[in-house]
């Protein structure tokens, strides 16, 4: 047993544990302030002021909301499946948080004599891991919707799940075209390839557009929030939920939004690359720690922009009808993604073989 304990690289484990807790904390904090930002953006788009009473400019509003959710009564419906009913929100939250493991949040910092990479796990299948976790996200929704023993919840859950599965396809196909260019599935490598300031979005504008639309659908955001359509389904799959279990579902949506913004920024917009700055030279001149700080800031600015786009679209575009949604997913986005893939493959072949017409 002693040998077993010694065989473990304890500093690495501690380092990763600290990193994981920081990232989880930051994601939760950002998700909290996304709720605030959502209300502010909605208000400003509608010529209102939004929450401005709790604290200066209302910045304590998320705390007040959280307190309200915590102090509400927990209701578990009589005829529901109790275990699954409680498991649902937990799964939704878990899958929302798990994606952050492979996103590179910055280069590396040099602290306590160790080079610490700001990425929890640089697995060589980073993008596939994200897909795996996203496809798991369906379960939180479906289990919650089914366990509530409510027809509206079940309908909403099935709507949401089939929507997520349908758009996952187009999302995967749009990324395949990108992966043909990168030749790697590791997000770290993909970011390193963009360090010269030429982001993949310039090569793959169509792919990015498809990915963006699919990200809206995956996060169940307007215009694709069919699983929460109030007019038809009362409140959607979390109708029977109350208190913090409801909070978890709502929160998971915002965490998902944060994570998908992070993935979009990483894959298409250079990740932690600081724009207009030669990162490597800057690191040599000013030290790696300052560089890592700037990189993290740059990534978070990109993420914030994407989150703003999410909200901006939500308060502009009305909801799709369900047949329109499916038509868009299967008949428009997937053929477009396939076309994008073919064109990309063709151009890569041209370049490799130096063919000229």
């Amino acid at each position, binding site marked *: 047993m002693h040998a077993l304990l010694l065989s473990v690289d304890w500093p690495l484990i501690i380092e990763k544990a600290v990193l994981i807790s920081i990232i989880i904390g930051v994601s939760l904090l950002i998700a909290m302030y996304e709720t605030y930002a959502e209300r502010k953006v909605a208000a400003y788009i509608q010529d209102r002021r939004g929450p401005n009473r709790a604290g200066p400019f209302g910045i304590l509003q998320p705390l007040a909301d959280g307190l309200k959710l915590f102090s509400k009564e927990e209701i578990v419906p009589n005829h529901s499946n109790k275990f699954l009913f409680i498991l649902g929100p937990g799964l939704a939250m878990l899958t929302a948080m798990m994606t952050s493991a492979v996103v590179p949040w910055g280069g590396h910092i040099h602290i306590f004599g160790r080079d610490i990479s700001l990425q929890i796990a640089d697995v060589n*299948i980073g993008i596939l891991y994200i897909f795996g976790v996203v496809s798991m996200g369906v379960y939180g929704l479906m289990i919650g919707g089914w366990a509530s023993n409510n027809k509206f919840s079940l309908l909403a859950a099935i709507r949401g799940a*089939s929507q997520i599965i349908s758009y996952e396809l187009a999302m995967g196909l749009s990324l395949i075209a990108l992966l043909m260019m990168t030749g790697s599935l590791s997000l770290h490598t993909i970011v390193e390839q963009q360090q010269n300031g030429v982001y993949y979005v310039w090569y793959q504008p169509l792919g990015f557009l498809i990915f963006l639309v699919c990200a809206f659908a995956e996060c169940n955001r307007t215009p694709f929030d069919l699983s929460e359509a109030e007019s038809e389904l009362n409140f959607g799959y979390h109708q029977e939920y109350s208190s913090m279990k409801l909070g978890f579902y709502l929160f998971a949506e915002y965490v998902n939004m944060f994570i998908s913004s992070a993935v979009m920024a990483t894959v298409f917009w250079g990740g932690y690359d600081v724009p207009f700055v030669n990162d490597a030279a800057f690191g040599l001149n000013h030290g790696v720690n300052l560089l890592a700080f700037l990189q993290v800031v740059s990534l978070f600015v990109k993420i914030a922009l994407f989150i703003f786009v999410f909200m901006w679209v939500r308060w502009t575009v009305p909801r799709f009808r369900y047949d329109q949604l499916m038509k868009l997913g299967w008949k428009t986005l997937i053929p477009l993604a396939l076309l994008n893939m073919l064109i990309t493959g063709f151009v890569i072949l041209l370049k490799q073989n130096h063919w000229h017409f």
Partner: protein
Amino acid sequence: MNLTQILFWFLSALALFSAIMVVISKNPVHSVLWLIVVFFTISGHYILLNAQFLAIVNLIVYAGAIMVLFLFVIMLMNLNAETEPQKNKWLKMAGVIGGGALLLVLVAALKDADTRNQIAQTGVGDIGLIHNLGLVLFKEYVIPFEISSVLFLSAMVGAVVIGKKE
């Protein structure tokens, strides 16, 4: 006993337990959920074998897509204890005999299998990494690979044709 072995035994025990739970759960939805746990443990085994690509593809395809469709069907059928049809006594007997025969075949096959010299290389092999797998698929097995992709394409076309029919 190192960490890998502990993980291996834990995952194996969990896999067997949840596989048994799939069979003996009364509620079909619980069966499907236990089956998802089985897929997770098998993916864990793949990771122990350093086959990360297989692990994640197993999760995406089986746990992420196929099981969701299973769940769809079972949830929509609204199966529960009251609506369960009465099973025939002879049907049960036939099931026992069939299952026993399968067990017999499995035991006989495993008895002769050479388990001594074929020890899984946990954490050292790299055949399951995406790079090597791609090389193998597109060099040695390119013909079967392409044929199976044509098969999938024809299945897709068939689905579209069925869907188009009014």
